[in-house]
């Protein structure tokens, strides 16, 4: 167990294994996103109340899922880095932040674009929307902290602390639609209950969610690999890679 843990923390090992997995995740992401988008836009039936504007759900929900799980992942990686001083965990936490921020922004904007025809307003100070905006600011705070220190360990420690404190926002986002009875509709997909939508609506949604997760993995790996090349530039294995490329 501990040997495995140490191996997992080794930048060289991660660089090699992620290079092998990356193409598979990329192919999976491409396939899932293509099938999901075509299904969502062309074949899924229109909603009986919202018409075709509801098709935004197929990007809004996966983006919001990723925004939150990306945050949880960033906080966990940050904690692992804090406790065990694991370099790879610091790298992962750092790389999660800009990607997560971009998906939070996407969830907010697609929500606004969907809100306009459905609620009649781009933005309302609904609990779900507000807590998602807080999530965006938390992400941006971590991105800013990461670049605010010249010392990498200090940057990692400060960002990890902020991510851990901000973790309280995640259950607030999740339960905001139940605690406060406002405009945003409750969860469309849950693990415990059968979906309230017909299968030809939720199957493409699941495909899109899977596609978004694969895409997240691809870009996270890409960023982490670049970050490792930069940080480990003094090591032999990075020099070997550079010699091969140059």
């Amino acid at each position, binding site marked *: 167990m501990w040997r495995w843990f140490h191996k997992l923390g080794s930048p060289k090992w991660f660089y090699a294994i992620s290079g092998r997995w990356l193409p598979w995740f990329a192919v999976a992401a491409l396939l899932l996103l293509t099938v999901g988008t075509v299904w969502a836009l062309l074949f899924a039936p229109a909603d009986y109340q919202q018409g075709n504007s509801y098709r935004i759900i197929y990007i*809004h929900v996966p983006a919001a899922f990723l925004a939150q799980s990306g945050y949880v992942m960033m906080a966990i990686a940050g904690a692992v880095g804090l406790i065990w001083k694991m370099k790879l965990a610091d790298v992962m936490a750092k790389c999660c932040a800009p990607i997560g921020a971009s998906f939070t*922004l996407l969830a907010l904007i*697609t929500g606004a674009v969907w809100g306009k025809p459905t609620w009649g307003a781009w933005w309302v100070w609904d609990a779900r929307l507000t807590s998602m905006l807080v999530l965006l600011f938390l992400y941006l705070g971590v991105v800013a902290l990461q670049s605010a220190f010249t010392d990498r360990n200090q940057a990692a420690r400060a960002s990890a602390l902020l991510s851990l404190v901000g973790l309280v926002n995640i259950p607030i986002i999740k339960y905001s639609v139940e605690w406060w009875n406002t405009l945003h509709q409750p969860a469309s997909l849950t693990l415990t209950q059968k979906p309230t939508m017909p299968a030809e609506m939720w199957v493409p949604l699941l495909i899109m969610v899977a596609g978004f997760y694969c895409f997240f993995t691809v870009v996270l790996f890409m960023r982490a690999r670049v970050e490792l090349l930069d940080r480990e*530039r003094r090591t032999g294995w990075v020099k070997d890679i*550079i010699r091969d490329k140059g």
Partner: protein
Amino acid sequence: MYFDNFSEFLAMGGHGLYVWIAYGLTAVIFIFNLIIPIFKRKRIIVEQTRQLRREELHASNS
């Protein structure tokens, strides 16, 4: 297929503008997430190749 023809597909029952803005923006954010690490990787490889050459030159001179 849900739509009868292409213009109906574009119109999205009058909600075309909203649907296409949302999907277009998604494409933009996806592309950005992909090209940022690609460019950064290129830059780092160029930088480090130069650095490595300098070091090797230095080592052979001394």
